[in-house]
């Protein structure tokens, strides 16, 4: 009997335990709910960069049929609206390059690639609301500066990603 009474829970105790469990559950819902709302409210920086990279990659995909090799490596970050972002990169004369800048939202793009003498490389640009591609043939082997600005009327900080292909 003693052993079985140990296993039995008195009704009053059971109710109080139920209250505790319900209380904990309510607390957990509050805590997790609060976290969930914070996550939802937080700026989705990582997700934004991921989407930006995906948009850029999708645009470059069609280049494979044209004989381009798409690099696995890429750059990404968050740009202030209208602020200039610079990326130093090594280019090799003799290769043709396509740089594709992607964003998670439609923006207005400006992009140019400068030589070490601060002269812009002539190239062909192609835009869509969320990507801008620039195709260039470097005039010499060396370090170039890729510069871009992004403009949006709805966001102050814009996640971006830059991928490149060569052939």
């Amino acid at each position: 009997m003693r052993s079985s009474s140990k296993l039995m829970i008195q009704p009053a105790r059971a109710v109080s335990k139920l209250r505790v469990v319900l209380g904990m559950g309510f607390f957990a819902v509050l805590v997790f709910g609060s976290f969930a709302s914070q996550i939802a409210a937080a700026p989705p920086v990582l997700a934004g960069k991921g989407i930006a990279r995906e948009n850029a990659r999708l645009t470059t995909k069609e280049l494979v049929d044209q004989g381009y090799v798409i690099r696995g490596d890429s750059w990404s970050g968050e740009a202030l609206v209208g602020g200039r972002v610079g990326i130093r990169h090594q280019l090799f004369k003799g290769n043709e390059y396509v740089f594709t800048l992607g964003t998670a939202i439609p923006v207005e793009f400006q992009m140019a690639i400068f030589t070490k003498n601060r002269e812009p490389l002539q190239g062909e640009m192609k835009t869509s609301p969320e990507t801008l591609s620039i195709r260039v043939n470097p005039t010499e082997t060396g370090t170039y500066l890729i510069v871009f600005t992004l403009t949006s009327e709805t966001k102050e900080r814009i996640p971006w990603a830059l991928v490149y292909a060569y052939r």
Partner: protein
Amino acid sequence: MPLRLRKASISTILCSLALGFISLPQVLAEKSLLTLGDDESFPGVIVENVVIPLPSEIFLVLDKLGGDGWEVNRELLEDARVRGGREGMALLLGVVIAEGFVGAQAEDPEAIRSVGRNVLRLADALGLREEVEAHCQAILDAVDSSDWKTIRAEFDRAELSVRSTMERMDDEDLAQCVSIGGWIRGTGVVAENIGKAYTADRAELLNQSLIIEHLQVETDRMTNATEGGRSTDLLVAVSAGLATMTGILETANKEGFSALRSQQLGTVCSELVGRIREGK
């Protein structure tokens, strides 16, 4: 009727465009409005991340300029054992992956298979076997069908997977070591190839001061962070080698490249690869 249809089509397209249903890519041939002033400083944010070129990116230009004579270093592949500290192993992994690009250039199936085995062994020793297994399998499958383009892409992906995982595990230094090892081996092969059939156009490919400067900064930072031992000795040797290469490039930029200078760069890289193989 056809006229009506045409009118209807045109109005539909115009409406769709106005509503943003169709977003046609625009080709803009005009010059960008962005300019840089004469001031040396940059009016904005410079991204610190430097993407290291793949060996195949440079091999491609050499091929266009009439390059051949690609040879895999079989001795290196037979002797790519797990030695030294984690930094040493990561450097060697980078070297071996670069050898894979050489193998793809030489279209040498046996070398690719050997590289695949070595990549698996080194990745295993670094606790990253899972990350490269699928890529190695894809490489071996592509060897069977002589799909050299896929092999190059998979070596790129394998290296990226390893480095990304290292970075996620807060092992950014090891990720840098993979890049450094790969660049040293790739540049050594390019320098040797240029030295064999020298032209000024081919030699220009060695003008990579941004990359050397970046790798030197990273190597010195890692050397300061390590606490002595074999890895430190190896990183000090790599840093010294990069400094020598900077000196050769500075002279070449002043006095012009030559076959001798290309060979000097090749020798520095070759000595560094030797140290990395020994793991000390």
